[in-house]
């Protein structure tokens, strides 16, 4: 396509430049019933999974229908969301903190036509465009990251495993059968963009090989002290290396100290470590962010490695499904997965979920590792 100017003048880049205007104010986009009753809500009830209403002091009600979103979506899809918003909700719509989409209407008779319309829309491949669900004691959307779509440090993909996992957990997206809500998150490297460190079940991209060293370019492309300081286990030291008959500044990696975090590559493009066979997935479990009953918890590593199996990641989804089923059958009402595992003991968690316990799961990182070992005789055989 030929170049079409927006009016920006590259010869005078600071001319007519608008900056520091921030986001639009949220209340510009309130549906009228939300604007009117803001701060005066009395209570709320579920009608069915994905559908609930709030009642205000004025007696006004607002009915919300929550639908799944793939998070990564085209403008065509967003236009379709807008079209639905125009048709049923006077042009209003919102996205949730887990990237679901919520349509709101102000009277009960508008809900059924909205739900029917949403559930009738499918992609050519057969998948639902707007599946209703994601509320209450079920499994809502998976918070996830860039993967092989856009990032340069991933050890696995994001959109692919998320689609595979949500397909397996789809019934729980549309149900409230679990003891408490169950949050699943994914991050494609241990930068952990998102919520993997604090989710009931977490999928995490993991490397198993140390970085390669591109001595030819390392000193030119990298600030060597930054690469050295990037290493959590101090595996990197500066070194002079012979390259092409010349002495060049570079680094040396002590491979027995490297645990493949990839932090050095983040700081230094000449230390790549992604590897088809080496890379895969770690599963973590038992995290939460709410303060309900128990304090917030970190998730813990429960499966040290599952290979990347694009495009459906069958071993990963099977492992997650198993954990969900055991938790669903065994935990008490209101008990989050982490509370359940701590109550029955992690040794029982591994037994019940039929997960092998390997030495990889035992913390060995600095002094705090000691506090994760068992300093009591209390355990179950």
């Amino acid at each position, binding site marked *: 396509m030929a170049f079409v100017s927006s009016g920006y003048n*590259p*010869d*005078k*880049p*600071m001319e007519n430049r608008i900056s520091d205007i921030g986001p639009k104010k949220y209340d510009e986009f309130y549906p009228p019933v939300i604007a009117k009753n803001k701060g005066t809500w009395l209570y709320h009830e579920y009608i069915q999974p994905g559908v609930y209403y709030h009642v205000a002091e004025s007696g006004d009600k607002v009915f919300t229908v929550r639908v799944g979103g793939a998070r990564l979506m085209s403008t065509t899809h967003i236009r379709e969301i807008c079209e639905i918003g125009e048709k049923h909700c006077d042009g209003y719509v919102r996205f949730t903190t887990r990237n679901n989409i919520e349509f709101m209407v102000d009277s009960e008779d508008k809900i059924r036509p909205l739900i029917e319309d949403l559930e009738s829309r499918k992609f050519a491949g057969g998948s639902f465009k707007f599946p209703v669900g994601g509320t209450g004691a079920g499994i809502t959307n998976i918070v996830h990251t860039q993967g092989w779509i856009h990032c340069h440090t991933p050890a696995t993909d994001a959109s692919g495993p998320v689609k595979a996992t949500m397909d397996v957990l789809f019934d729980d997206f549309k149900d409230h059968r679990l003891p408490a809500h169950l949050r699943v998150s994914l991050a494609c490297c241990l*930068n952990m963009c998102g919520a993997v460190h604090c989710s009931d079940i977490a999928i995490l991209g993991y490397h198993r090989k140390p970085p390669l060293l591109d001595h030819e370019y390392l000193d*030119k*492309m*990298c*600030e*060597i*002290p*930054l690469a050295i300081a990037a290493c959590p286990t101090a595996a990197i030291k500066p070194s002079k290396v012979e390259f092409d008959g010349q002495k060049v500044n570079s680094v040396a990696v002590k491979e027995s100290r490297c645990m493949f975090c990839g932090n050095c590559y*983040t*700081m*230094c*493009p000449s230390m790549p470590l992604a590897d088809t066979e080496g890379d895969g997935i770690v599963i973590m479990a038992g995290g939460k962010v709410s303060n309900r009953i128990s304090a917030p918890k970190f998730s813990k590593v429960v499966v040290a490695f599952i290979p990347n199996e694009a495009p459906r990641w069958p071993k990963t989804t099977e492992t997650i499904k198993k954990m969900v089923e055991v938790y669903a059958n065994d935990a008490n009402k209101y008990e989050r997965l982490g509370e359940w595992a701590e109550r029955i003991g992690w040794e029982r968690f591994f037994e019940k979920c039929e997960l092998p316990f390997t030495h990889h799961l035992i913390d060995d990182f600095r002094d705090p590792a000691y506090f994760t070992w068992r300093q009591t005789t209390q355990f179950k055989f």
Partner: protein
Amino acid sequence: MPSVEFMGKTFNVDEDGFIDSYDNWCQEWVQWVKKEEGIDELNDEHQKVIDVLRDYYEKNGIAPMVRVLSKVTGFKLKHIYELFPSGPGKGACKMAGLPKPTGCV
């Protein structure tokens, strides 16, 4: 690697226009980046920022933190942006011939 011809010199650059090696930096490079960054006139203050960046990089092997750059030059961040509209990283470090900033930028 793409290259640019400017004032009789050839520079190898990456896709973001950073020079391939600190050692290939020269005054012609400064003039090239000035044009690319849309800076009208190079003054003593621009030169001071470049000198501080190059001096710090030679001594420490890294670019200074923004607070250090401000403290040593005496220029507040706002003023550094007035000098280099793309900022201390994309603008000033590029002009000074430092490696491209890395990390979650």
